[in-house]
Each structure stands twice: as structure tokens, then as C-alpha cells.
């Protein structure tokens, strides 16, 4: 069975641009969460979706947005990119209830903002 898949794996953007990151959860999983991991830090919660509804949002500016589609895949959008947005963006999925229980991560999307 495929795990959580994310695309793209690496990308470079310029300050002020916009980026869309994509995630497909493990088959059967209905909850998707997004985390940002800056070098030297642990993953930090951005968004949580369950059954296509936003169930939680971390302390991130409105430049960050996300959505979940009917097939439970998800997109994370970041507008007006700043240098500080350079990080590994991790998507995680879980089976039923929204994350807070065991979640399974993808390999992440490395975003570099120059």
C-alpha cells in the first residue's frame, strides 16, 4: 500500500511568489494535516482537515491556506512568499478522527525561497 505522497519534493521560489503543495493520504485515511519544519526545529502544526472540513489551524498568517478534496487529497497554498517560509512542509494522514492520535507523514516538500 502506498504511504502518504507529496509533490513536488523540492522547489525554489522567489520572494513574493505563490506556491501550491499537494498531498495524497494513505488509502482509507480521511484526515490530513500539514506541518512546517524549519531546520533545527520540530514540525509545527499549520492545518488539519477531516472529511473536507477545516478542523484546526495553527499560528500561521492568512497567507497560508489549504483545502481537502472529495478524494481526501489536499493542497497547501502559501501566498506572498517570504524568506522565512523556507522549510520542509510535511503532510500527514490519519484514519478516522482528526490528528492528535497517531499520524503518518509523507516525505515532505522542500521549499526554498530566494
Amino acid at each position, binding site marked *: 500500500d502506498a504511504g502518504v505522497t507529496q509533490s513536488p519534493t523540492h522547489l525554489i521560489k522567489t520572494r513574493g511568489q505563490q506556491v501550491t503543495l499537494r498531498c495524497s493520504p494513505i488509502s482509507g485515511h480521511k484526515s490530513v494535516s500539514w506541518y512546517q519544519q524549519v531546520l*533545527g526545529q520540530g514540525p*509545527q502544526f499549520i492545518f488539519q482537515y477531516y472529511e473536507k472540513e477545516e478542523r484546526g489551524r495553527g499560528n500561521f498568517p492568512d497567507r497560508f491556506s489549504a483545502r481537502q478534496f472529495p478524494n481526501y487529497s489536499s493542497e497547501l497554498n502559501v501566498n506572498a512568499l517570504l524568506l522565512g517560509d523556507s522549510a520542509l512542509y510535511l503532510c500527514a494522514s490519519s484514519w478516522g478522527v482528526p490528528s492528535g492520535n497517531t499520524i503518518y507523514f509523507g516525505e*515532505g516538500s522542500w521549499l526554498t525561497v530566494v
Partner: protein
Amino acid sequence: DQQVKQNSPSLSVQEGRISILNCDYTNSMFDYFLWYKKYPAEGPTFLISISSIKDKNEDGRFTVFLNKSAKHLSLHIVPSQPGDSAVYFCAASEYYSGNTPLVFGKGTRLSVIA
């Protein structure tokens, strides 16, 4: 304010010996705790978890101990193997009370020396 703290950024252990990774938390509402392992260029992988109704959980070479009064948990790896060399993240949530997202520590880099 860091709610989950891993105060040792790194740890070196000889192969075959015990590795002990520590984690402290400040939020007394946390009731579910997890350890994740992360290799370079990969997403975090779930290792073991424990709920607040237990003080110990074992899975093969991995044991997690929880001391609620001290707000402290530890991960023991016995015996340590070179393949255990990775960054280990401690995570916590208010799963049973509020189903909040996971809060991660900064991680501890474990090096197992052959």
C-alpha cells in the same frame, strides 16, 4: 513558549548499549504522547506511543516511560543498533480531552557507534 522540550540536541551511544532519550512537557492537559524517528530526506516515522493512563509501553527494542507527576517521558532503545541513528522527535496532544493536533519537540539526534 515551548510546550514540549527535548533538552539534549544530540546523543552518542555505542552499539549494543542502551539509548535513553528524554522529553519534558509543560501542558498538564497533554494526555497522549508519541515518538517519531526521522532519517535525512525522509518524513518522520511513527515509532511508539503512550496514553496518560499508562506509565510504560513496550514494542520490541523500544520502551516509552511516562512520569505524569514530573511531566517527563523517556524512550529507551535496547540494544541500540547503527540503523537507529536518526533524529527522534517527542510529540504530545490533548487527545482524549480536546483532540488537539500534535505538538513536537525540537528533536534529539541519536548516533549509534559501531
